[in-house]
């Protein structure tokens, strides 16, 4: 956007005084061009199209994208379980049970709550480091992280699209 400065104003007012109409018109148009432009709220086009009987494509497309993204993420996560060695699955299950038990004990005692929590986190970190050390596991973790980030970004975008706002 061009800067709104005094030059077109000075030229315009001087041209008005001297009744130089063409110059005055050009300078005034330049002044208007420098004014900040209003922006319509997001979703305006959809509302217009809905009123003339056309589906709000952006919304439908957005929901389709979200559903497809979640489906792919779920299918990948479930499919990846089958790829893991049986010993990993057993170890993961045992580890999770152990963590939960540790946390339960900590809560029941009512003291040293942080100790089992840290122990659980350490256990999770331990299994994660084992997974990352293996190329197959590292690829799986990377894929899951990527899908999670994409799903979060998509969800944020959808929520943001539904928030009407003016940007002056």
């Amino acid at each position, binding site marked *: 956007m061009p800067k*709104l400065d005094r030059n077109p104003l000075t030229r315009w007012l001087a041209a008005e005084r001297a009744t130089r109409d063409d110059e005055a018109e050009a300078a005034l148009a330049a002044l208007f061009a420098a004014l900040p*432009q209003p922006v319509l709220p997001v979703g*305006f086009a959809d509302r217009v199209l809905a*009123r003339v009987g056309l589906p709000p494509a952006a919304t439908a497309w957005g929901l389709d994208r979200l559903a497809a993204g979640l489906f792919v993420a779920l299918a990948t996560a479930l499919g990846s379980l089958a790829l893991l060695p049986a010993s990993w699955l057993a170890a993961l299950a045992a580890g999770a049970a152990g963590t939960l038990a540790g946390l339960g004990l900590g809560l029941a005692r009512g003291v040293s709550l942080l100790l089992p929590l840290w122990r659980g986190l350490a256990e999770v970190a331990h299994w994660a480091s084992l997974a990352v050390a293996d190329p197959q596991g590292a690829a799986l973790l990377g894929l899951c992280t990527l899908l999670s980030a994409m799903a979060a970004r998509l969800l944020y975008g959808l929520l943001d699209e539904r928030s009407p706002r003016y940007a002056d």
Partner: protein
Amino acid sequence: MQSDQQLVAEALEGSQDAYRELVRRYATPLFRLVRRMVRDDSLAEDLTQETLVKAFAALGSYDPGRRLASWLFKIAHNTTIDHLRRGQLATTPLAAEEGDVQGPLDRLADPSLPSPEERARGADLARDLTAAVAALDLRYRELVLLRFQEGLEYQEIAEVTGLPLGTVKTRLHRGRKRLAELLAERGWTP
């Protein structure tokens, strides 16, 4: 880029993308005009939406020999004037107008200006020019906006407003002079 006439033809054949592109091209100019005429964001959005709905309903009657922008501005003009005539828009009280000048118009500052002093001056000018336009009589205001904000030719403005060409020229000349007076009252001189 497709021409307006191509888009209209495709829209008439039922292309949703064509309708969407027409909205993308013209919603903001229509909103910009109506907003400065009625001085109310929410109402301007409603009237802009009404304009586009009417235009799409009457798309079959659009003459491809004319500029689509002029045709749309004419519908926006009629829609806004109808609304004003129905008295649904109360005249903005002076106090409210002054409040408006101090409120949303404060957002008009251009943050890219290099120094605080120049920035403040640019913001002041933007605010005062907008306020001066808002203070113009509606007869002049719409013509000034169509000519200097939207860049329409005299003949197009005559078609949009239904006024004789001579009247358009006269009112534009007077509107320009009045705008200069209003800015001078706010301390802007050459």
